[in-house]
């Protein structure tokens, strides 16, 4: 996984709350068995609408999505994260994220930064008044900068460390494989098994 320390890119204002994973990527695109190539599927229903924000030329190259609260609700599909990454997004900012979506993002190096809704509104205003304005997401300093705005960003310590180091979770867990084996030896024998 690539390291994430800070990123600067065009901010995209998405003034919707409750953007669920069916909107981020509809189920018809989940039939693929690959992990890449989902960029066309991102927000596919909305992208048919000419007025949708990503169809605006100034936002098309956006890499920081600034969304309403409760982003990523619904299904566990990691395809939602792959689609955002494949499109070119490096970070999503929202006042609140759904738990599974936030977890999936962390595994894939997509930063989910929590901002106060007031700060989100101020950033929306800047991005709408001057489309194409860049946003800096600084994980090291835990802050977001956009024009004159400097907003504190919440990311938990462990996720921040993993993202800044670019560490892979499975590799980290494998360091404790002996402890896993010890735990297994102590599991009650009444626990079910799927194989005879």
């Amino acid at each position, binding site marked *: 996984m690539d390291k994430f320390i800070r990123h600067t890119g065009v901010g995209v204002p998405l003034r919707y709350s409750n953007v669920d994973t069916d909107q981020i990527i509809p189920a018809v695109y989940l039939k693929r068995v690959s992990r890449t190539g989902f960029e066309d599927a991102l927000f596919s229903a909305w992208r048919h609408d000419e007025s949708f924000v990503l169809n605006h030329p100034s936002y098309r190259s956006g890499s920081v999505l600034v969304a309403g609260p409760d982003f990523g609700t619904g299904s566990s599909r990691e395809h939602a994260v792959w689609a955002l990454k494949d499109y070119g997004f490096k970070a999503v900012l929202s006042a609140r994220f759904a738990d599974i979506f936030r977890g999936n993002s962390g595994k894939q190096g997509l930063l989910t930064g929590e901002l106060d809704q007031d700060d989100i509104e101020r950033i929306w205003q800047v991005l709408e008044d001057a489309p194409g304005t860049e946003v800096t997401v600084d994980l090291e300093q835990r802050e977001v900068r956009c024009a004159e705005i400097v907003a504190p960003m919440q990311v938990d310590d*462990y996720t921040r460390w993993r993202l800044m180091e670019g560490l892979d979770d499975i590799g980290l867990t494998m360091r404790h494989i002996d402890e896993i084996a010890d735990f297994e030896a102590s599991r009650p024998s009444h626990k079910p098994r799927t194989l005879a």
Partner: protein
Amino acid sequence: MGKTLAEKVWDAHVVRRAEGAPDLLYIDLHLVHEVTSPQAFEGLRLAGRQVRRPDLTLATEDHNTPTLDIDKPIADLTSRTQIDTLRRNCEDFGIRLHPLGDTEQGIVHVVGPQLGLTQPGMTVVCGDSHTSTHGAFGALAFGIGTSEVEHVLATQTLPLRPFKTMAINVEGKLRPGTTSKDIILAVIAKIGTGGGQGYVLEYRGEAIRSLSMEARMTICNMSIEAGARAGMIAPDETTFEYVQGRPHAPKGKEWDAALEYWKSLRTDDDAEFDTEVTIDAEELEPYVTWGTNPGQGLPLSSAVPDPASFAGEAERAAAERALEYMDLRPGTPLREITVDTVFIGSCTNGRIEDLRAAAEIVKGRRKADDVRVLVVPGSDRVRLQAESEGLDKIFTEFGAEWRFAGCSMCLGMNPDQLSPGERSASTSNRNFEGRQGKGGRTHLVSPLVAAATGVRGTLSSPADLDPTPLPSRDHEH
């Protein structure tokens, strides 16, 4: 201070706890399906890793599978490729698979409990957000993403941050015509789609205690719709009775040992929840959703709300967007909304009790003329049981289509989809835009409301039906 049920199960599975790091939790059961697993198996191959515990892993085919002509090759090539990929992965990594056509095939969250693999006090995960279903047994069960699927396959563990706990107290008794689906729709309407974020919900109280296991599963299933990764109900005699005798239930001395442990799985009297919410079951009516998220629900006796009546700007904007998508006008009584399709099925309401409840309503009646009614059992075992009770005949005589098991129209990954603009009353769990097919409009309902809606063609509860079923087929509407 005592512990909550969730904390007890969590603590019993901690492999490793270290300052500044998430707990490493052991996973007792990993359920796998075709949609969220291919990239995880690919990851294992690329890293040269094995599946650590195939004996704690079970796969089934459900999301993509057709519900008609299941003996023929799957027509959709990408669906067929995904199914074939799961079959190859299970063979290569030694995982037990119940493929389409197998008697144990079905929706992963129907299959686990039915086989007795879901038991109290376990940790259960699956690359599917409705894994919360299994919490009905007093298990800690939650959905995970594909990276986590790979993590569990490789290590049988997951690094996780502790959840906060929320008690949902459902006091009093449900009135006739209301069901556990109405409880959970009311809970979500009350706390919102984000209300449960970061929490494990524990459903408690008289109304919950009196529910059957299947009704409890319906409630826990939709915990994720309130934003909670997991929902739980403390195991009791109802739970033990359901588990006992199933293929994978403990037997003999093992049963006794398990039972002793399971009986300790309840929230201690002096334990404290981080948050508590109380709902009065006596006040509940059949609930339906009017919008495009499961929190946008109201009693069936209400009218479509006016967006101007919502407090916050975001809420107002969300309601406006939802009404536009749903093509509804404020003030329209919900009972006057006409539907094109009724879907009875899914991991929320595709179990035998759901089918029995719906069948009892439609028995001897004839569906409304322009409504398509689709009945999809949650598993092949449910289908066989229903057929042995003659429910399939009741449904087909009603005018419904009786199908083979799978996720079907809940998410429309197979051919069972709504057309653009089509409106459904659906016993499933999500009313998101396009969820059941591009441009489709979904109203979430209980099996009773679904059945009554099939009779009248507009959103209805059994109380709206004529008292005596009509004997003839040529009833005029």
